[in-house]
């Protein structure tokens, strides 16, 4: 009974995801950057990146109850790994203008020499996985000492590690690898992703980031629903009880931390892909705070919530509330009030209201399917009786 229901749900989810991706693909072709709706594409690109980052943070903070503030650091590792390994050979010297580049190896380029267009795609995929692995490896190293710490000490220690990582990546002595504190560019970026079919070029600049985020979020959902996920939740609810039940605390905390960081690394790489630049200076603790606020907005402990929260956050701050900054909003003209920065003030007030009065966020701990399930509750029950 349960199995058949799950199968049905899985099919519905599968078809839903497929339709969603098809829609994104269509939007990618229909909307040009110069259109009025061009911002929609940007919001989808950035929103999906932040959704992935928020969901991966939620895995750790919401599902395992480990309050970590090191997300920006892991995203930085992912972004740099991805960028460094996808800069084409001919642009390498221009990017490393003050240094003699030490790594001269672009995965997509190498593979495309042998396999053509498919090689490029595979190379980008491998670079993304590598980005995640580097972040995961660093998380494992950091996790050894810090995961023993309790809640807020853990938060401040992970925050500290993120700052240390940022400083190391800006160190001029590592310039041949990281380009010092200067930005990395010209690597494989979303705006250049095209699919050529029978002479017509199809844009993939929004589709690829959304696809990456979707696949990763599905993987996280699968982890959350596995035995590991249940162990994580047990640790969150009561560490001592969880230990008494035979859950290996250290091991499961580490798994959660490393997995979360892996996806944070992928999110960082995708962010670089979307922004078409990577620079250590952008991965400050403020970025972690923003992602945390997205998680809170959506509801701590809800993956759907994190996705909705981050899409709303990005859409509101990049698109809908722009008018608050430029003098005119909802037809009201007040250039003295609606000037630079007002958008962020309104935004932070909304967030404070959510934090204080709607502590559960938009979704609480519920997921999207839960919303449908409640309505249908009676019907399957009757079926069961029959």
């Amino acid at each position, binding site marked *: 009974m349960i199995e058949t229901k799950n199968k049905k749900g899985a099919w519905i989810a599968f078809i839903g995801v497929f339709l969603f991706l098809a829609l994104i693909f269509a939007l990618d072709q229909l909307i040009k950057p110069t*259109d009025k709706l061009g911002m929609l594409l*940007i919001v989808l690109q950035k929103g999906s990146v932040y959704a992935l980052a928020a969901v991966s943070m939620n895995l750790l903070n919401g599902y395992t109850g480990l309050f970590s503030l090191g997300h920006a650091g892991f995203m930085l590792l992912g972004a740099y790994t991805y960028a460094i390994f996808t800069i084409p050979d001919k642009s390498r010297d221009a990017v490393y203008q003050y240094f003699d580049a030490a790594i001269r190896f672009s995965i997509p380029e190498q593979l495309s020499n042998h396999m053509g267009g498919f090689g490029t795609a595979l190379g980008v995929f491998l670079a993304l996985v590598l980005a995640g692995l580097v972040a995961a490896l660093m998380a494992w190293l950091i996790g050894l000492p810090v995961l023993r710490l309790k809640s807020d000490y853990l938060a401040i220690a992970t925050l500290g590690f993120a700052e240390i990582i940022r400083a190391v990546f800006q160190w001029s002595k590592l310039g041949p690898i990281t380009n010092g504190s200067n930005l990395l560019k010209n690597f494989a970026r979303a705006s250049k992703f095209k699919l050529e079919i029978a002479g017509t070029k199809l844009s993939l600049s929004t589709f690829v980031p959304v696809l990456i985020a979707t696949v990763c979020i599905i993987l996280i959902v699968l982890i959350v629903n596995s035995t590991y996920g249940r162990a994580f939740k047990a640790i969150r609810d009561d560490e001592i009880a969880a230990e008494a039940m035979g859950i290996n605390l250290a091991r499961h905390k580490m798994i959660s931390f490393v997995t979360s960081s892996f996806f944070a690394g992928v999110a960082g790489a995708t962010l670089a892909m979307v922004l078409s630049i990577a620079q250590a200076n952008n991965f400050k603790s403020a970025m972690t705070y923003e992602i945390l606020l997205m998680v809170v907005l959506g509801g701590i402990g809800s993956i759907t919530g994190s996705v909705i929260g981050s899409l709303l956050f990005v859409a509101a701050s990049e698109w809908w509330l722009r008018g608050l900054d430029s003098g005119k909003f909802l037809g009201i003209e007040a250039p003295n009030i609606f000037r630079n920065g007002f958008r962020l003030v309104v935004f932070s007030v909304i967030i404070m209201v959510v934090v204080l009065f709607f502590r559960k966020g938009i979704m609480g701990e519920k997921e999207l399917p839960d919303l449908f399930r409640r309505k249908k509750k009676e019907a399957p029950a009757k079926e069961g009786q029959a």
Partner: protein
Amino acid sequence: MKKVLSLVLVLAMIVALGASAYADNPVVKIGVFEPQSGDNGAGGKQEVLGMQYANALTPTVEIDGTTYDVELVYADNASSNDKAPTAAQTLISSGVSLVLGSYGSGVSIAASDTFDAAGVPAIGVTCTNPQVTAGCDVYFRICFLDPFQGTVLANFAKNELGATKAYCLAKQGDDYSGGLCNYFIDAFGKDNCVYEQFPEGTSDYSTYITNAQNQGCDVFFSPVSTEAAAQIIAKADTQALGMPILAGDTWDSNVILQAAKGTNVKICVTTFYQEGADAEFDKGIKEWINANPTALANNGGNDELAAVTVMGFDAYYVALEALKAAGSVDPADVLEVLPSVTYEGVTGAIAFDEIGDALRDSAFVKACNTESGVWDFVAVATVG
């Protein structure tokens, strides 16, 4: 020069009269991609002033026989490389024909891909790093480049100031100061330079001053943002730096003059324009600034001209020239004709080379008069 300006003025008046007759002109949008907040906010605001003044003088342009109203569309790149691509995208989606900006090289480099993907041409006003135009087909610029400016400054330090050891200070991850220091060091000699970078959010510049003193340097080269500059000057004064400070075009700003007034610090800068070179222009823009409280506030509270303001003024007219030559408001058409656009501006003749860089071979060197708080002209410097 005066002729051109008076012609422009007359033209502006005629066009303005014409404009009043046809109230409903079609609109052509020019994007202004400048920092309005963050480290370079003050400088960005001054650069925008030039464009606004030019827009006030010449609010319309005739494209292919039709008179268009010119609308400036603003986007704040917040002096931050990660905000730049989105700011660029908002300009692109609002339907601009071309973009002016930015002050600061990093944001221009960061946004170049976004402009490139949309095929919208951009004219850099004072972004001097070579990377802005290199490898980007849609980016042009009207200012000189860092290899040139760095060499000019290094020669000046060696020959005029008699310096033998230079202390170079840049901001970490900042393409403007980092790039300029790099080319300065190339020209000055690597072994005679001490190069340090301060992180973002630094408030304590006193240690860097102590470092320069301790290492026995005799010139202090710090082409950083005006925000940092004001504090460096204050610390140089309290700690009795004992060597001249040298900087690039960003320091040609009244922020520096205010900070340096009454102190005992010697400051020299290279820049695009010397106030007084075009008296009529100076008079016009000062009147405009003084008549407009917002403009006055954005210029730092007085009417001392910054070179970037003048560059912004010229950039606006280059944009109009490009629109006229293209005969269309389509970004693609503007991009096509832009390489061959020339213009005789207040800061000199403007033309582009094959990369899209301005053909400029001279810079003004100015020194700060700490008693009266104005710039004194020192020399016109060239390389070659």
